[in-house]
């Protein structure tokens, strides 16, 4: 448990993706089987416990620690699991009265002494997992207490995170798979393809990655097939080289990419990285009345029309979906490719051929939950450019842009250069005022590189005040970063830890032109809106703060997007 606990600890303090990858890879390289497999399962969400409810944890600590001391502690720390991990008074602490050489005895921590005195051995991760699996609900509190006694602080923290479900250390299943790929020097697509045939603790998988064994078979029923991705189109670079006759165009839908599989009655709905998201979408699973594998976009679908991304978000990242929620936000798939037609793997066929099969496949379904992503006919790139700027009325207005697919392209995993392009609509732009800046990490350590910006809004007295609408941390060059950092330092009005509030009033402030992909209503933000992919497009050193945009101007985009 120690190594796993230390890994979680380090991960939780490391915001950078590459750092997390190094930590994960290093752990997976050094931890023994089956511990690392169990750890991997918990990190990728294959292993979910929610046995220990906060009330149970609270009860456990209150039986051990004076309620007032607990209250003072909780008040200081602010997080229940962490408070318990820290304040848990393990039994059999060394005697309260020490000998004269007290200082000597304190060269080791009390908990370590306790162990050498024959208390319970620290439980290892596989033991915790296996025991919990077979334990009844009634037994969990006793197990919890016993383990809390035997573990040290970091171990207790890791245990409580594991037991309450959701490690929340900023590691996605995708990232964990990338770490596995790095460990074995293989492509992450290879891991994704065989992932669903593997079960914890993944000993065969590790054996293969460490060149000690055969590659495990990917041949699991209803397995995930790695998806084909598109390159971003560079108009100036690419168009002169491309012949419009070679390409089909279709709208780029603003949902999430999914793969829907039904093989021999086994139904699965996968995200584009191979995470099984079927549990959140029972309505979609029920509609998979076919034999095959579809590639398409998961969207809110009502009477053949799509909803906005904000509506889809009501359904994402939920473990289950209530009947109410499903009725209010019915989900469906807009299909754009076919990987498996019946039992036949069609990935080696051309896009033109797959498209014909897809049209027939979807037509046979007669489903309100699955429809076809239509092709958009066009004569030349100019016409397509016009369509992209001014999409026809209807669903296309909600599209993120266009997709171009070569008629003769086979379906290949990864992001090959040439066969598929995405051509996004131009981003929305807003002029906002810099309000807060936060220090970055790694190469940006010592620089204020994360910027919170706001727009003007009338408060209850009718005064114009700034309200934060987003946060951006890229889109500027290193030279610009130096200038931004200097501006922040020269104009700080308040500090909160690593965050500085900068001077931002009508007569003084820095205007940032922010580019973003879309806007959603949000109850979590004071302004009531949340941006997608905001970044700094330009720094408007020239523009007075009073001329920055207002919240009502920003809200017009909500109306445009119909969300």
């Amino acid at each position, binding site marked *: 448990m120690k190594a796993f606990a230390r890994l979680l600890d380090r991960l939780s303090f490391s915001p950078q993706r590459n750092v997390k990858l190094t*930590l994960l890879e290093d752990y997976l390289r050094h931890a023994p089987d089956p511990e690392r497999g169990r750890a991997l399962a918990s990190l990728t969400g294959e292993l979910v416990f929610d046995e220990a409810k906060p009330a149970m944890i609270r009860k456990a600590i209150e039986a051990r620690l004076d309620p007032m*001391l607990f209250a003072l502690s909780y008040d200081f*720390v602010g997080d229940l699991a962490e408070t318990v991990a820290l304040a848990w008074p393990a039994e059999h602490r060394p005697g309260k009265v020490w000998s004269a050489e007290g200082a000597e005895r304190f*060269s080791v921590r009390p908990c370590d002494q306790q162990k050498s005195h024959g208390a319970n051995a620290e439980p290892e991760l596989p033991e915790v997992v296996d025991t919990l699996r077979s334990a009844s609900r009634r037994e969990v509190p006793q197990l919890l207490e016993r383990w809390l006694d035997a573990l040290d602080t970091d171990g207790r923290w890791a245990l409580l995170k594991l037991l309450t479900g959701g490690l929340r250390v900023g590691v996605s299943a995708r990232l964990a798979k990338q770490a596995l790929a790095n460990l074995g020097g293989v492509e992450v697509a290879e891991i994704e393809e065989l992932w669903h045939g593997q079960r914890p603790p993944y000993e065969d998988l590790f054996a293969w990655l460490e060149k000690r064994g055969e590659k495990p078979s990917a041949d699991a029923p209803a397995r995930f097939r790695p998806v084909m991705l598109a390159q971003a189109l560079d108009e100036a670079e690419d168009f002169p080289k491309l012949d419009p006759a070679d390409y089909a165009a279709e709208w780029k839908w603003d949902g999430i990419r999914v793969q829907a599989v039904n093989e021999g009655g086994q139904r699965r709905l996968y995200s584009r990285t191979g995470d099984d998201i079927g549990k959140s979408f029972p309505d979609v699973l029920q509609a998979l009345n076919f034999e095959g594998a579809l590639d398409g976009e998961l969207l809110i679908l009502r009477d053949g029309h799509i909803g906005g991304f904000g509506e889809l978000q009501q359904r994402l990242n939920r473990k289950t979906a209530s009947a109410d929620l499903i009725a209010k936000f019915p989900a469906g798939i807009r299909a754009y490719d076919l990987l498996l037609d019946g039992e036949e793997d069609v990935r080696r066929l051309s896009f033109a051929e797959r498209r014909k099969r897809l049209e027939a496949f979807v037509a046979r379904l007669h489903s309100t939950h699955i429809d076809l992503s239509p092709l958009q006919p066009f004569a030349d790139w100019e016409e397509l450019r016009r369509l992209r700027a001014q999409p026809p009325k209807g669903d296309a207005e909600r599209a993120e842009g266009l997709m171009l697919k070569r008629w003769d392209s086979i379906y290949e995993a990864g992001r090959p250069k040439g066969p598929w392009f995405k051509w996004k609509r131009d981003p929305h732009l807003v002029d906002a005022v810099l309000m807060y800046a936060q220090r970055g990490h*790694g190469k940006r350590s010592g620089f204020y590189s994360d910027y919170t910006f706001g727009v003007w809004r009338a408060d209850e007295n009718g005064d114009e005040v700034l309200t934060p609408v987003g946060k951006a941390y890229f889109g500027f060059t290193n030279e610009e970063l130096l200038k931004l950092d200097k501006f922040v330092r020269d104009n700080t009005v308040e500090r909160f830890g690593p965050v500085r509030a900068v001077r931002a009033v009508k007569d003084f402030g820095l205007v940032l032109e922010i580019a973003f992909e879309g806007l959603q209503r949000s109850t979590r933000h004071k302004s009531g809106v949340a941006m997608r992919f905001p970044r700094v497009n330009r720094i408007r050193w020239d523009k007075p703060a009073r001329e920055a945009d207002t919240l009502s101007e920003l809200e017009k985009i909500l109306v445009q997007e119909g969300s």
Partner: protein
Amino acid sequence: MPNFTELLCPDEAGLYCPPGGFHIDPVRVVERAVITHGHGDHARTGHGAVLATRETLAIMASRYGADFAGTSEEARYGQAVKRGGVEVTLVPAGHILGSAQVVLKWKGLTIVVSGDYKRRRDPTCAPFEPIACDVFVSEATFGLPVFRHPDDGGEVAKLLQSLRQFPERTHLIGAYALGKAQRLLALLREAGYGETIYIHGAMQNLNALYESFGVALGTTAPATTDRRANRHDRLEGRIVIAPPSATQDRWSRRFAEPLLGFASGWMRVRARARQQGVELPLILSDHGDWDELTGTIAEIKPQELWVTHGSEEALLRWSSLNGVTAKALELVGYEDEET
């Protein structure tokens, strides 16, 4: 027996001993002061006469110049001196080099002012000695049950593991310039780390002072490099120790993708570490944790416990649960050097 407060009582300058005519760690300029240790909030400049250990006097001279007080007198650990009718003895507190508890004996009364202290082993200073007394005056910097400092060795191992994992990054560790920095150096050497350790300019004098008192710190060098140097010369894969404020500032940009660590007892609480943008929290404190504080009180068994500064509320609660008479002195002016 006289009242305890006849021997020691708080006044506007701090703790005052009326029969001895001196203050202990006064926060204002006074005529006569006994100083427990060299941290700035305890050892101020400008007093008329100062009594302290040789190490503490040297630290004060190094920080404030030779004329930091009108006169100064060196007290040896364990050797009593008379002040008025009061017998004053300094005994080790285990906090930093030269740190001392002040033992006051007068008319059959014994009061121990512990200053700042810790109970675990520290290679840079003499260990705390528990002294039986009527009144024990304790700090409570980490006086909450959530503060249980882990084993030092584990924290140093965490740093060494990170150096192995991220050999391309400078490991920039914030540590208070007096005490913590030298302890971290000494602990790294004990763990077998033999490389040159780079230090911020603000620490050089204090390091030299520690070494002059026989505390070996190994090879150190000034952390001089700049952003324009090539990567190799920007101390990649090296340990740099600097005062916490410097690690947070432009100064840190000269290093190779610095990985920011901070050696402090406050790092025990995750939100505190995160607020400061720390990637590698090292829980290393020169103050006793909850177990050390409560264990010390239980060991000494004073008639009364007086709590000077920190989280006194929890410690008072613990005292009442454990049958110890306790009160908070609510002294002001002591900062916490680990912040």
